[in-house]
């Protein structure tokens, strides 16, 4: 009797196990044979980037500049390993710059006297010939004022940025229900070698004293930093694309050429020298417009 009971229980258990197993298998079967199983989110999509080279002339404008705006002309060359990943380089040179309203106001209103003699461009004539230890209240008339403050402000000279481009989003855009255009959103990141023209270092050993009018001239410097950009690209045809990119180029520099730090407690006070301690962190930003030419012809996915 016991044996029968055991066998009956075993048989029932097997049946239940088999039934539950078949249910699971059935669920899996639906996953395996479902009509959309393995189907891509988008069919017959033009792969605008995969296996293609892109050459794109660019024009970049700096944003939120305190003292000087710069227009950079350049180009971007990319090769896309897949439709979502590419490698390349962007390079641009400053072709035009313009001072801001603040620069013009400093130029117009900043007094040229012993208190500003190491910070604001002038034409010389320090009182008593000794500007290294200025005396508050000394006559400002003894310092020439017809030198432009704009001449000491820094500007971007060039940028070279080897970068990786990541294209996570691809879609299409309808404008006024009439214009339809393929669009993608990409992120670019990499290193950047940035050339700048900045007020030369002064006041240190072997350097001009900072009160010397000649010390307000700018000199070239190179900054190594990182950069990233967010780009929206429109593809009206297989060959030509249009892009607009926001790019950040953060690094330390001294846009005004002021002596602001290096002395006193924690180095937070002027030290009558202009050097790297006067650099401040700026999250330099640019907007870039690009016209891209891509080749060879794009493939189409399944």
């Amino acid at each position: 009797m016991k044996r029968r009971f055991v066998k009956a229980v075993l048989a029932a258990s097997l049946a239940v196990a088999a039934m539950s197993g078949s249910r699971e298998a059935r669920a899996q079967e639906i996953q395996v044979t479902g009509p959309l199983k393995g189907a891509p989110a988008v069919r017959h999509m033009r792969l605008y980037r995969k296996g293609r080279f892109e050459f794109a002339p660019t024009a970049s404008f700096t944003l939120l500049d305190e003292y000087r705006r710069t227009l950079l002309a350049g180009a971007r060359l990319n090769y896309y390993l897949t439709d979502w990943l590419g490698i390349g380089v962007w390079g641009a040179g400053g072709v035009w710059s313009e001072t801001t309203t603040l620069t013009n106001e400093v130029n117009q209103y900043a007094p040229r006297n012993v208190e500003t003699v190491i910070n604001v461009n002038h034409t010389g004539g320090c009182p008593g010939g000794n500007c290294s230890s200025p005396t508050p209240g000394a006559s400002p008339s003894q310092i020439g004022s017809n030198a432009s403050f704009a001449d000491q402000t820094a500007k971007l000279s060039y940028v070279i940025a080897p970068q990786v481009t990541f294209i996570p989003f691809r879609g299409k855009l309808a404008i006024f229900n009439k214009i339809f255009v393929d669009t993608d959103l990409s992120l670019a990141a990499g290193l950047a070698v940035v050339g700048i023209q900045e007020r030369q270092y002064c006041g240190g050993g072997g350097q001009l004293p900072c009160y010397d009018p000649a010390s307000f001239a700018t000199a070239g410097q190179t900054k190594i930093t990182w950069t990233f950009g967010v780009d929206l690209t429109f593809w009206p045809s297989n060959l030509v694309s249009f892009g607009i990119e926001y790019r950040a180029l953060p690094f330390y520099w001294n846009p005004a050429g002021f002596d602001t730090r290096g002395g006193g407690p924690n180095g937070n006070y002027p030290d009558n020298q202009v050097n790297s301690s006067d650099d401040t962190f700026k999250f330099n930003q640019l907007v870039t417009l690009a016209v891209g030419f891509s080749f060879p012809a794009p493939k189409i996915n399944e």
Partner: protein
Amino acid sequence: MKQARRWLLLAAALVLLPQAAYAQKKKPKGTTPAPAAPVSADADADSTPAPAAATPPPAEGSADQATPPPAGGEAGAGVGGEATGGDTGGGMDICQITPDAPQCQAAKEFNLGAEAKKTIRAEVYAVQQQYVLKGGRFEIQPFFAFTLNDQFVSHDAPGLALNYYLTQVLAVGVVGNWYDGLNSPSDFNFQLRRAAHVAIPLNDYQLSGDVNFTYVPMYGKFAGFGDFIFNYDGYIDGGLGLIRTKPISVIDPDNRLFSWNNLINFDVGIGLRIFFNRWLAATLEIRDIMYFERIESTTVATGADVPVGAMGYGPSSPTNPATWYDTNTHFTNDVQMQVGLSVFLPTSFEYALPK
């Protein structure tokens, strides 16, 4: 022992039951049912071989003859024939029951076999059906705004926009920001004053509010990582309102204590809305609030600083508020980036037309 065998037999039968149901998925070729008439002919013809052609016996004609024609006398119709042929597998043809059903009407109008042989040039819109219908719905849009263009004082602020969509593309609403307590003068001002002895007039904001119209000319969808699809739209907005500002006393803080000024402003913005579902979206907007700012005078009145007259100061006294402001107003752009959420109410809607 015999009972155990019965149990085992029962178990085997139960195990086989679902598999038997399963097997119905793959029928022998000869009995493959033809698709019902209303199945979209263009899609099938475009992507797969015509089922009727792929099923040699029985021929259309024989199928028609082997089964009673659907009510309505459409015996000769190829589509009807295919449908009844399929139904010989055991099902009941819906056209026999309800000949007025739309798919039966559609079947009368064309021959599926002939249509399948045609080259299809289907007109496909870039976005077949807008993901979210906005007409007649309210939008609640809380956001936080970051200053983009003022390197002297940042005016970050929480804000709220309320819109009502008159149509799918046009809305009217209000938007407001609260800045007070979050204005943050930059260290850059101090450095400039110390180095060049030039003071830049600075202003605080308290609040702003505008009545806006919103227009949505763009919409689309993106495939993320080639795996998922999200919908978005782009909008522009603009309107008229009020902003309350006051100068921060920089030039003569000993004497000048400013109060809030009410100033008329115009605002324009451009935004992007990315939908998580049909009533919730993330928003990103760039908005420019334009107005004529009253700034602190960079010159200090030189009159006697003594209590004079009923007001307690003379006309050229530095304590006279009339001398505190610059005589000119200054056109000012407060450009801000708004990041927020968009909630549409009611949360559900119905399409007027099928997809």
